[in-house]
């Protein structure tokens, strides 16, 4: 039960953070040159001053910035994210449409990064300073150093054009109208390359953290006790070292949830995936404040939920949290 109070308190503490972000972004975007009407007219390729004035009224841009902020926060309290200028629909529906792609991409990349980061980290730690360690560490660094969009575009050239194995982009193949199981398979095929592109970068980070954490735990006293009990090295690692080494890895997930959504902006534009990342980019370009704040609000919720889950996971792993040290 204590975990819930602990995690609950953390949740409550994140409310002020959320409000801080929203106001910060809102004030920031007031300074941007041009507003959503200018962006609309840029897209329309024309429009006279009269229509511009009407549009400004229609989007509620004719009142002072503070009044706009006031309306926004008042609506937010009632969980109404306002109206999206780009799509002429409530922001909530626009985000709901694009959420699945982002959630799928993020969970896939995060699990790929975590799982392979863990496995390679253990292998590297076990064979420290020998060839498996150097090979894995350098490979990890190469993926870490490679710009994600560059890897993405090269992957498209190799895998979808040259080898024709995987689709070059998009979320699913709608011309054929698949349903049920075959549709999920089709979406999976579409997500292979984007997940690789986004996931490999984070795998390199998890790999290094796991290697360092394994080496650290191997020097602790209870590992020596385990060996003194006559345990062979593999059992020592599996029964005793692994679980302790996992703790920093789990905390990292919480920290990285935010940055991952940032990373997906580029990946989604390279693979033309309809996710929150690209929507955020478009709403900045189109000066669509409501959508941008809606995305910031939803991604903040996403990060807070991920942190909440991470807290629960951490408490399950480490009894010292729940029973109070």
């Amino acid at each position, binding site marked *: 039960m204590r975990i819930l109070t602990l995690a609950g308190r953390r949740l409550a503490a994140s409310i002020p953070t*959320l409000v801080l972000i929203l106001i910060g972004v809102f004030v920031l975007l007031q300074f941007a040159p041009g507003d959503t009407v200018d962006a609309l007219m840029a897209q329309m390729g024309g429009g006279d001053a009269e229509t511009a004035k009407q549009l400004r009224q229609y989007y509620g841009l004719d009142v002072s910035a503070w009044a706009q902020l006031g309306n926004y926060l008042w609506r937010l309290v009632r969980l109404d994210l306002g109206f999206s200028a780009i799509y002429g629909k409530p922001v909530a529906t626009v985000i709901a449409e694009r959420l699945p792609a982002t959630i799928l991409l993020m969970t896939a990349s995060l699990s790929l990064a975590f799982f392979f980061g863990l496995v390679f980290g253990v292998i590297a730690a076990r064979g420290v300073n020998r060839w498996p360690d150097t090979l894995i560490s350098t490979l990890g660094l*190469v993926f870490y*150093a490679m710009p994600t969009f560059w890897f993405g*575009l090269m992957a498209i*050239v190799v895998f979808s054009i040259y080898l024709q194995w995987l689709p070059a982009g998009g979320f699913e193949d709608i011309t054929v109208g698949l349903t049920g199981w075959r549709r999920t398979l089709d979406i999976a095929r579409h997500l292979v390359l984007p997940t690789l592109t986004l996931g490999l970068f984070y795998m390199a980070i998890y790999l290094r953290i796991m290697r360092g954490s394994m080496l650290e735990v*191997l020097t602790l006293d209870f590992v020596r006790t385990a060996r003194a009990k006559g345990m062979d090295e593999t059992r020592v690692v599996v029964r005793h070292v692994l679980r302790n080494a996992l703790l920093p890895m789990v905390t990292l997930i919480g*920290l990285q949830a935010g*940055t991952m959504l940032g990373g997906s902006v*580029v990946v989604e534009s390279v693979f033309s995936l309809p996710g929150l990342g690209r929507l*955020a980019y478009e709403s900045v370009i189109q000066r669509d404040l409501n959508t941008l704040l809606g995305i910031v609000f939803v991604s903040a919720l996403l990060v807070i939920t991920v942190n909440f889950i991470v807290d629960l996971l951490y408490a399950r792993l480490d009894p010292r949290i729940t029973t109070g040290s």
Partner: protein
Amino acid sequence: MSFLKLYFRSPPAIIGLVLLLLVLAMAISADWFYPRDPLALAGRPLIWPFANPRFLLGTDNSGRDIAAQIFHGARISLLIGLVATIISVVIGITIGAVAGYYGDWVDTILMRVTEAFQTLPNFILLLVLVAVFGSTITTVTVAIGIVSWPASARLTRAEFLSLRNREFVQAGRTLGLRDVKLIFGEILPNALPPVIVYASVVMAIAILLESALAFLKLSDPNVASWGNLIGAGRDVLRVQWYVSAIPGVAILVTVLAVSLVGQGLNDALNPRLKGR
């Protein structure tokens, strides 16, 4: 064992240092090899590398010499990486130090601000900053600096929390040292090494962020940065893939070098881990 001897024991650290020196040499010798403005029209656009002896690495889709842009770009990208890292580390240290040293309500407030920056996806904040303040080289660098300070703040705060009650700090307090003297005289010198090592990670990320911004055509067009070359190359990627590939490799090598040096520093600092 002296710090340097420890550092040079690990081959990857040496490779990293060599690569970094190579990139630095490129940055310094740029004016000597390519005196003309790298953005000037050098010849026919989209010449393949090694096709024309005058342009060893060919020309991009604006007819500019790629080799010149790689050399001059080294200076810009390192500069962006360095300045952005300094900004983010300085902000991070100050906030981390104050939060870690004073604790309770000061710590809570500053941590809420740090969490706010970390909850908000940093690339999106970067987009907003660039959209608002324009895409000149200074705004891009400052924006990257502003976006990446939370991680070093967390690290500094952790260091300060552990060092704050260390006995030599308490001794300093009994001797009558003021808080400021304690923070900057006693604790900071001991808290700096891990933060400096982490700075290599921040620098690597700064260079990658600049290239991502350039990919979205949001960085400064008047400057010959590698990111810009990749952004330009994006339009001709399928045919003249080398326009993006060459700067991509340059970024790969630089970030690899910075990370290897960072890792070398880290292992040399706590030999217990590496030497085990």
